[in-house]
């Protein structure tokens, strides 16, 4: 499903984002990617999303060759991914319902599909009753749930979450993580970049540890390893 083969990313300013990374993530896995700031977590996710391309090596995501991809194929790769950001990135002038529907309009879904899928996605994240609320009327946790609903509404094969609990209190963080686990149990591959030791240790999922762009550990049912 996702394969990094000897992938290296060096930015134009000379900073090494990833160095000779070889890793494989199978369909339906739940993976934590951990590491200190500058360890390469974000670069790892950016390569999956084709926000960046590797300077050397190969990256395959859902059958697409990210390292060698024509520009017109990028949207189709991204449609197979759902993305959750730490800073939510919701549209402030649209309701919760419209924010989720927006993701379906973009992929030109039929109006009847939008009417059916959006309430389902909002129901899945437990926010059916807040469909008409605007982002500034929602708490941080609720906003992140809307983002999750938006990421899931097009049924992506892979869900990528970059520090999804970074702006949330511990209780809400757990609610979000439980949701991610639920989503994973429905068959979606989930990749979470995080700093939350307690969550990683408690969930006992696969842990990929990056340090200065290199793979330090890759363990099934792993714990948060402090690379320092």
């Amino acid at each position, binding site marked *: 499903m996702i394969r990094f083969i000897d992938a290296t990313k060096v930015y134009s300013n000379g900073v090494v984002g990833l160095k000779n990374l070889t890793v494989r993530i199978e369909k339906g896995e739940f993976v934590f990617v951990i590491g200190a700031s500058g360890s390469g977590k974000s670069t790892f996710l950016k390569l999956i*999303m084709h*926000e960046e391309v590797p300077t050397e090596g190969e990256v395959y995501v859902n059958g697409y060759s990210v390292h060698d991809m024509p520009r*017109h194929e990028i*949207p*189709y*790769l*991204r*449609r197979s*991914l759902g*993305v959750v950001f730490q800073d939510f*990135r919701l*549209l402030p002038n649209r309701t919760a319902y419209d924010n989720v529907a*927006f*993701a379906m*309009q*973009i*992929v*030109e879904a039929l*109006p009847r599909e939008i009417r059916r899928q959006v309430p389902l996605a909002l129901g899945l994240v437990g926010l059916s009753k807040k469909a008409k609320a605007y982002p500034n009327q929602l708490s941080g946790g609720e906003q992140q749930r809307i983002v999750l609903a*938006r990421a899931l509404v*097009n049924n992506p094969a892979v869900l990528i979450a970059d520090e999804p609990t970074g702006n949330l209190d511990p209780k809400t963080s757990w609610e979000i993580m439980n949701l991610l686990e639920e989503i994973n149990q429905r068959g979606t591959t989930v990749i979470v970049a995080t700093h939350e030791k307690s969550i990683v240790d408690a969930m006992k999922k696969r842990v990929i540890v990056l340090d200065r762009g290199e793979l330090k550990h890759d363990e099934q049912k792993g714990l948060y390893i402090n690379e320092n």
Partner: protein
Amino acid sequence: MKIRTVRLLVKEGTFNVYKNKLMSFASLATVIATLFILGLVLLIVVNVTTNIDNMKKDLEVVAFLDRDASILEKEEVGLYIEENRKAGIVLSYRLETADEFFESLKTDLRNNEKLLDDLSPELFPDCYYIKLNHPDYSDDFIAKLKLYEGIDADWISYPKDELEKLSGTLSVINYVTIFILIVLIVVSILLISNTIRLTVFARRKEIEIMKYVGALDWFIRLPFIVEGMIIGLAGSLVSFFFTSQTYSWIRSGLDTLFASAGVPNLKMIEFNPVALRVLVIYVIFGMTMGIIGSFMSVRKHLNV
């Protein structure tokens, strides 16, 4: 591209024009000014070209027959001109005999008959007035005409050179005009581009989200292109109205001026027969400027 998606994006683009009303108005004003100047310059060029072409059509080769030439030699000249008429080089011609000329001279000098005392028709040559189908035929036609014995080669006149000087001046004016127009078009495109850049900037987060969710490039571009097209189209229509009114006003003024100055042959063309062409040019130019401006603004933000 699905029709309902296009409808949605067109609606969004239209709304953006209204949302950015101040900058939209600035762009609109520039488009109007650019097209207005473009239109007037084009109409001036068309008018001058048409009048020069009309003058060229009225030009006559005036060729005098040699008084000492034999009847046969004179007939050969007539045959040459007639052959050229059949070949489509000569449009029409007429022969004015010395007698006819003398009669017209008598009419002209009826108040000074004394001047005619020592004159008789034998002193004057017969003369051909020849209209050509195109001024370009003149050099070859006159060169061959001069070879005939029956022609007085020193007295062939054709005032083509004066008109060619005028055409030369016109082409210089054309180049200057094209340069000014290019500058104006570039300014218009930059202004439209800046207007749309404001919308793009206001919606950069939305664009970013669209890219992450997998929106195709055209899905992101279309509302902005629609915005540019609307500004261009509206500008072209308003400008067309201004141009037609201004041209009619100038035309009536100049026609009166030409008539009173004793040059009734100079006439400005009517606007209605060329109105559709002017409108089409305006719409094409206006919308193209809008589209180019939009593309320039949105390109940077597509590279997410």
